[in-house]
């Protein structure tokens, strides 16, 4: 067991994180690239089946490998490699070490076969990702703190649910569950917090854009996708997930359409895309789950690509507001080109990875005759042009510069990372069978039929027409759109301040009241027992002798009478 664990992909990434602390220069760069690649190799070496252990009387399954775990494991390791390649010039050892620990946590969750192991890796992810956010600089400390609060709340919900589930069922093994007990609802709630589900979805748009130009690449990959992965394991076919996912899908588009900051826009796009997957988990048929797995794999790469593009723009221009950007296609041609490929992928244009994966989920809804979810998924699919699909590249790379910005494509390692991700988007889209053979269920879906292709092209082309005709209404405007986080960032703060004022006033009154009474008591004591008081002043010796004699005489008299 120990040998298997030490040779697990997660252990390789933990070793990489440790290595970064003791290396410099070329060795550090080599370690940054080598350990994620080693993890990718080790994913394929994980023995199929499960490895068991015992801890405090609980049966643990630290490693369980099947088709779904291998797919997510491989994609996560690949994304970790792309992320470290992109971040090769990043000097923050804390961020990069945390990124490798974060990736290790994600791989640990993927291969975990029991809830206790999963929870341990889950919390490692929460801590490591908080550190990545905080590495965005002083302005990121607030978002990092709020990120940590939300994720620790999610962790508490998950832990409580796991404890209840183990107490009730006696089993620690992760299996398909129905949310029919409070413990299972708590587990579901804990998972949905990490997926970016309502009402706590604002942590994504709050924290991710606050991270550094490289940090957001890692953040965009692991947390939400591991949540989708565990939802696939534990709650396939749970109907409420369909509606939660669709709400996320529409929310992400609407907020992204209003957003001015490119990285916050991408954060909303992430929520929208994760929503499609959560809805797919809720549909729960083999085709839908295949679609979720394929779309997760595709989304990891194209989201990372788009975030890399936004990171390149930030690094090279120092700007992220679309109202201050535009016309960068001339000065950053490779960034613009790869960004367009990422845009086509997220919009699910034929020949890209998004098309061969997202269409499976929509087809699953159609085959189940789920009219409402199908319409909503089609709307969300068309709505991709309102965020990263068209609006972002249009305004950043082709729109009129305000004013013209002097910039250039980023350094070579960043260019290679973006180019590799772009190639992967096309490869998966052109040769979908390479992706389909890794899916958890047998695939009976053919993406490239004339009907599928035409429907998708028509959908996107006319959505783009609507966007073009109404583009003036969606010009980037300075400002933010208030979200649920207003409740704890503004209302909660005001309530806390009001409570503070109230309690402070009451405390002041209490203290002053006690002080007044204590002062009066003090004065009283001083009157009688003070230096000038009756009992406190110095009495003459004669008076003392008189009263002593009087008391002794009285005592003798009383004794004689008795």
């Amino acid at each position: 067991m120990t040998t298997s664990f030490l040779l697990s992909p997660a252990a390789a990434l933990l070793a990489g994180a440790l290595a970064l602390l003791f290396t410099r220069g070329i060795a550090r760069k080599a370690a940054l690239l080598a350990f994620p690649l080693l993890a990718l190799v080790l994913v394929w070496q994980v023995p199929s089946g499960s490895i068991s252990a015992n801890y405090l009387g609980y049966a643990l399954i630290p490693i369980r490998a099947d088709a779904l775990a291998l797919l997510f494991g491989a994609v996560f390791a690949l994304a970790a490699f792309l992320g470290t390649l992109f971040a090769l010039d990043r000097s923050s050892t804390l961020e990069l070490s945390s990124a490798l620990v974060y990736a290790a946590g994600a791989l640990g969750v993927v291969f975990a076969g029991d809830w206790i192991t999963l929870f341990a890796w889950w919390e490692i992810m929460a801590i490591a990702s908080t550190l990545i956010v905080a590495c965005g600089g002083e302005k990121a400390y607030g978002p990092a703190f709020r990120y940590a609060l939300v994720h620790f709340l999610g962790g508490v919900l998950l832990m409580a649910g796991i404890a209840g589930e183990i107490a009730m069922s006696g089993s620690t093994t992760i299996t398909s569950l129905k949310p029919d007990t409070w413990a299972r609802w708590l587990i579901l709630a804990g998972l949905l917090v990490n997926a970016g589900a309502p009402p706590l979805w604002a942590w994504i748009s709050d924290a991710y854009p606050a991270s550094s130009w490289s940090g957001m690449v890692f953040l965009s990959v692991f947390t939400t996708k591991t949540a989708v992965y565990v939802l696939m394991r534990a709650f396939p076919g749970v109907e409420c997930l369909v509606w939660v996912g669709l709400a996320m899908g529409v929310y992400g588009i609407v907020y992204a359409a209003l957003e001015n900051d490119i990285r916050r826009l991408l954060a909303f796009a992430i929520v929208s895309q994760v929503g499609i997957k959560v809805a797919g988990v809720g549909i729960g048929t083999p085709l839908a789950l295949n679609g979720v797995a394929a779309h997760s794999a595709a989304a990891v790469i194209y989201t990372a690509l788009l975030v890399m593009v936004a990171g390149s723009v930030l690094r090279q221009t120092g700007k992220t507001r679309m109202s201050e950007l535009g016309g960068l296609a001339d000065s950053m041609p490779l960034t613009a080109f790869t960004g367009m490929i990422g845009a086509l992928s997220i919009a699910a244009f034929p020949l890209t990875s998004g098309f061969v994966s997202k269409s499976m989920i929509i087809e699953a809804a159609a085959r189940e005759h789920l009219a409402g979810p199908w319409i909503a998924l089609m709307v969300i699919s068309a709505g991709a042009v309102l965020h990263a699909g068209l609006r972002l590249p249009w305004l950043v790379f082709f729109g009129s510069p305000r004013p013209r910005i002097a910039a250039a494509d980023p350094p070579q390692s960043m260019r290679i990372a973006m180019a590799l991700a772009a190639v992967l988007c096309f490869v998966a889209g052109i040769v979908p069978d390479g992706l389909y053979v890794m899916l958890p269920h047998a695939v009976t879906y053919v993406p490239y039929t004339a009907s599928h292709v035409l429907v998708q092209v028509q959908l996107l082309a006319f959505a783009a027409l609507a966007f073009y005709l109404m583009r003036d209404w969606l010009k980037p405007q300075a400002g933010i759109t208030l979200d649920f986080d207003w409740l704890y960032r503004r209302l909660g703060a005001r309530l806390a301040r009001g409570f503070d004022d109230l309690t402070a006033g009451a405390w002041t009154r209490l203290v002053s009241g006690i002080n007044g009474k204590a002062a009066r008591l003090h004065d009283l004591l001083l009157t009688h027992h003070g230096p000038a008081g009756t009992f406190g002043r110095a009495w003459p010796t004669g008076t003392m002798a008189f009263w002593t004699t009087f008391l002794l005489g009285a005592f003798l008299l009383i004794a004689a009478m008795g």
Partner: protein
Amino acid sequence: MRDTRKTSAVPLKILAGKDLRKIGLAVLVVLVLLDLVVTHYRHFGVDGTFGFAAWFGALACFCLILLALAVGSLLRAPEGTYDD
């Protein structure tokens, strides 16, 4: 970083060109006309009808933009809203 002040924004020129608009319109028309030769499988009746995905895509995007504008009119706030 090199100054791109003097370079021409070629994609911008192309996108702003009237020719492209005509080409785009022609492409949209061709895409709809292709429904005459491509058979769609109908799951709900309305899907698979002539030009369904075209009008649906435009309408969906139109509705989402209106929804976004409505949300924006209610919930937009200055950038420093949370700065204390």
